[in-house]
């Protein structure tokens, strides 16, 4: 299998704290990988390092074989990495359609505004509404649509279910399942294990800045002691 994302021995220090201590991880073409871990183990920092928001101290990461270590954010974004950031990070004064088209990038056979509206019909109804006035779940859908229109090689989802009502999380799961069956490569960081497990082919668990567990999703599902040991879940 060829890899979309290859992270090799990535380290990140912020001041005196060594936050990421040598992470190796891969995401294959069309694969969905879920990254779990308790609060403060470095999951989001890892996402930020991949996006170029913080600079890794050592190690490297490659997107479809292209070394993007230490490259500026926009360069990484144009290379084909799109993030749905934690807390969504939308411009509240823009409308739905403006937000979606803001970073849009054409690709043959890729995502278009029409396809995004087909996937997320609620956004089509509200295309002229200001995003800041929408519910958290709707904003999350806008953030996903915006990332899709970048036509990324890899989609990073940083805790997409955070702060959403359970019913909305269910809808979110359906949308992500549709993306996966469409063949999109996905790396998702989640606290909601069910959402992550339903989506992913493979599960990684991070603790204290290291990947401490890696297995196919079936193994994780079948052996509850894994989650118990690493995540403290009974």
């Amino acid at each position, binding site marked *: 299998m060829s890899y979309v994302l290859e992270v090799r021995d990535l380290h990140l220090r912020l001041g005196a704290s060594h936050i990421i201590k040598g992470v190796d991880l891969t995401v294959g073409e069309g694969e969905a990988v879920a990254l779990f871990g308790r609060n403060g183990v470095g999951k989001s920092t890892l996402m930020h390092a991949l996006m*170029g928001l913080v600079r890794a101290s050592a190690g490297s990461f490659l997107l479809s074989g292209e070394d993007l270590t230490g490259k500026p954010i*926009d360069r990484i*974004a144009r290379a084909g990495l799109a993030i749905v950031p934690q807390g969504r*990070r939308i411009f509240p004064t823009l409308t739905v359609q403006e937000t979606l088209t803001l*970073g849009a990038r054409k690709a043959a056979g890729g995502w278009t505004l029409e396809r995004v509206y087909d996937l997320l019909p609620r956004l089509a109804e509200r295309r002229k509404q200001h995003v800041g006035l929408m519910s958290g779940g709707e904003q999350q859908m806008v953030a996903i649509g915006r990332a899709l229109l970048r036509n990324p090689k890899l989609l990073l989802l940083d805790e997409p279910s955070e702060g959403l009502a359970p019913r909305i999380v269910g809808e979110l799961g359906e949308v992500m399942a549709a993306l996966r069956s469409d063949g999109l490569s996905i790396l998702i960081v989640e606290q909601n294990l069910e959402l992550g497990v339903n989506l992913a082919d493979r599960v990684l668990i991070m603790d204290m800045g290291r990947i401490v567990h890696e297995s196919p999703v079936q193994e994780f599902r079948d052996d509850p002691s894994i989650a118990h040991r690493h995540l403290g879940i009974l």
Partner: protein
Amino acid sequence: MRWVVRLAVLALLMAIPFIVNEYRVGLVAQILIFGLAAASLNVLVGVAGLPSLGHAAFFGVGGYAAGLTAIHLTQSVWVCLIMAALVGAVLAVPAGLLSVRLGGITFLMLSLAIAEILYSASETWRDVTGGSDGLSGIPSLELFPGFALDLVVERYYFVVVIFAVLYMVLRRFVDSPTGWSLRGVTSNSERMASMGYDVNRYRFVAYVVAGVVGAVAGGLNVEYSRFASPEDLGFALSSLLLVIVILGGRKRLEGAIIAAAIIVYIRQELSSQFNTWEFGLGLILVLVIYFLPGGLSGVRDQVVKALARRRALRVKTTEGGTP
């Protein structure tokens, strides 16, 4: 509606020489010239979020370029203004490459430093610039060979036309996708970058556009006044332009013109009567910053918002059925 207002303003400017005396015509020309310079600074400060304390550098350099071209090369006003624009660009490209990636206070200090270097150069390089005496002996410029812009009215109309054209250029730039992307960059540069926008390239484009238009405004000033001096590059003018932008409101281009009108008017009218017009200006600025954070042009937005709030409140009370 927009075009109605624009054409009405243009018609008013065209009628000015028939309404007021020659001295006042000159005042309006100054308003337009400084308004254009302030509007170009507004693109930098308000749209691109780069606070500059050295915008007079472009104004002055454009002025010297136009003046020296007129003395040594040709009296064609078109060539003079094109030279002003070119020299503005020659300054803006390296200065922009050097400074836009810094942003914030560092950008501010560097803009000041660049302007001060040029200021002292213009004072020292007497052979070319005339030093602190200024560049005098600039001939009347010619609209086309044989037709010199001699009369105040002729020079005034030329200023109006160039002002109108360049104001529309700035307007188009600000409303273009690039302009809106710049607002996004100003609002949150990391967010724009993570959508694939090269933040510094957008800032650089805004810097060059502002610099070139600022330089042409300086050239226009020389066309009108036939004089250039180190003052045109100086800190006093830079800060005055920034004051105009803040007074007018950073968010709106037309604010710079309105504020330029007020400031040029009180400077001319009051400085002959009171020596301390700067005191009055400072007081106005404090009051505006305190009570009108969006500047003069922000007043309309505030009124619109207040009305919308009242309407929303009324709708809510009628819907709720309680008084």
